[in-house]
């Protein structure tokens, strides 16, 4: 309630004290209120309150983007437009996005194809890593012997930069594409192994005691107790893994070539088309954010607050 009063404009609080109970709800859910349409806005205190909450939600991010554009324009002006400014980049972007899915041979494809090629590599590498890493994490978390066996190995291999694995991948798989996938695999497996193992180790003893008193089979323990209890930890691992994979693919593709957003950046650098590089940075950011956001949503849907009770 204190927070709600703090957020509400003084005139609204004074004009309708009877509504004070509802103020908190309105301030907390500006979006859902606005979705209800103009009918609700006739109840006087809601109008100004809504717009204030709305602007509080929208204005700071807008300021942030404005700052970014401002700095960008200054840098551009400072370098004599060798780095194109926002306006020039926008022009280029409009031309580019008219047809993102064209194909003029293997070395000249639309940016859409490049992004999809990168996503495909991430999906394959990440999928393989999940298929190996999550069961491995369960086993390592469940059995002390395995935990002690693999603990030092993981500690040794995890800090290695994924790109250091690229030559090994090229050597073993004799191809750029499998090598890139291998790099994604090796960098995204660790967060999943580690988080899953920690999750298994942190399953409350109470739940395991229930399993023991009921004498549940190992399969039932895995599906009814371990898996749901570990899921939030596992999804944190998956989220970290996807973020890392998306970070690494760009660098890996710069080295391996072919089709992909990373290669596209390198190609445009060779063409000295800096505007396209800036556009690529923007695309990489948006896709990475979208991946992260989707996984956060999935994770929160499977987290059970009452586990802490």
């Amino acid at each position: 309630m204190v927070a709600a009063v703090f957020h509400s404009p003084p005139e609204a609080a004074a004009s309708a004290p009877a509504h004070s109970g509802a103020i908190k709800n309105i301030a907390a859910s500006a979006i859902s209120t606005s979705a209800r349409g103009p009918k609700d806005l006739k109840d006087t205190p809601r109008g100004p309150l809504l717009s204030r909450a709305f602007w509080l939600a929208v204005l700071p991010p807008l300021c942030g983007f404005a700052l970014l554009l401002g700095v960008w324009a200054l840098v551009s002006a400072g370098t004599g437009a060798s780095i194109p400014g926002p306006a020039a980049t926008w022009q280029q972007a409009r031309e580019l996005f008219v047809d993102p899915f064209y194909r003029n041979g293997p070395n000249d494809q639309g940016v859409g194809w490049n992004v999809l090629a990168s996503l495909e590599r991430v999906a394959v590498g990440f999928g393989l890593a999940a298929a190996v890493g999550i069961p491995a994490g369960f086993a390592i978390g469940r059995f002390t012997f395995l935990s002690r066996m693999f603990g030092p190995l993981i500690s040794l291999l995890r800090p290695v930069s994924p790109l250091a694995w690229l030559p090994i991948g090229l050597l073993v798989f004799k191809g750029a594409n499998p090598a890139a996938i291998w790099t994604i695999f090796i960098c995204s497996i660790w967060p999943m192994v580690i988080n899953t193992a920690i999750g298994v180790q942190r399953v409350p003893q109470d739940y395991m005691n229930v399993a023991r008193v009921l004498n549940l089979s190992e399969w039932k323990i895995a599906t009814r107790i371990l898996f749901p209890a570990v899921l939030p930890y596992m999804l944190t691992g998956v989220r970290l893994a996807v973020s890392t994979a998306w970070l690494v693919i760009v660098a890996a593709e710069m080295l391996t070539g072919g089709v992909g957003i990373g290669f596209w950046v390198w190609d445009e650098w060779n063409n000295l088309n800096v505007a396209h590089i800036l556009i690529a940075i923007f695309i990489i950011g948006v896709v990475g954010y979208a991946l992260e956001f989707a996984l956060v949503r999935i994770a929160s849907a499977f987290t059970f607050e009452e586990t802490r009770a």
Partner: protein
Amino acid sequence: MTTPSDTTAAALPARSAPPAARYLDIQQVGQTFKTAKGPFTALQNINLQIAQGEFVALIGHSGCGKSTLLNLIAGLTAPTSGVLLCANREIKGPGPERAVVFQNHSLLPWMSCHDNVYLAVERVFGATESRAQLRERTQAALALVGLSHAAGKRPGEISGGMKQRVGIARALSMEPQVLLMDEPFGALDALTRARLQDELLEIVLRTRSTVVMVTHDVDEAVLLADKIVMLTNGPAATIGEVLHVPVARPRQRVALAEDPVYLRCRKAVLDFLYTRQAHVEKAA
């Protein structure tokens, strides 16, 4: 004051049915834990016989090893010395014939109340009964504790008292030979606790289960138990006294408040806990 205690092994059959007098048999049991500071003896020289159908309360100050003893009977831990028998067989590990109601209910938060109970029912009767029968058993267990309406809810959506009742329903649904309860009502408010105690009295009267309940509530122990086992203060706790509660069943909370036998038992437990065992910790 006359002390109605006796520490002999022969338990008086508290109820009319002719029970196996040594259904649960605890012989010379000791429990030592390894800690960073060296071995810690929690229990020693525990000898206790519990008859089939008997309701036993374990009482003592906190830290005296009540729960340790219950975990030993449950088979969740193994004794360092001595042996525990259930129906003349050694207790080697936990099993559904010795159901446990945990102190903190221990329901699985990702399952509805129905599914929590069903998990237990399925484990015990799944091999021999149809799904419809299993569901029927689940619903009956929830009805027993008056929670049919909450069957579809998750533990996070119901009150603490209701969770504890689901925990009891889960334990009862397994039709265990022994019901082990670790301070089942400890975290509840006085009114809820009283209601659940009355429900438990009724249920036990109907099912004739053997019950071992850990408690630190003197009134609870005297109201519910046929036999109150009082533990001395830890470390190295042992059984200080065993008190029989010769109060007829069914027991009515309000009527008992002035019952001389009830009051005598209550005084005996209080005397043990607060006079004789009050200062042992300082001496030790």
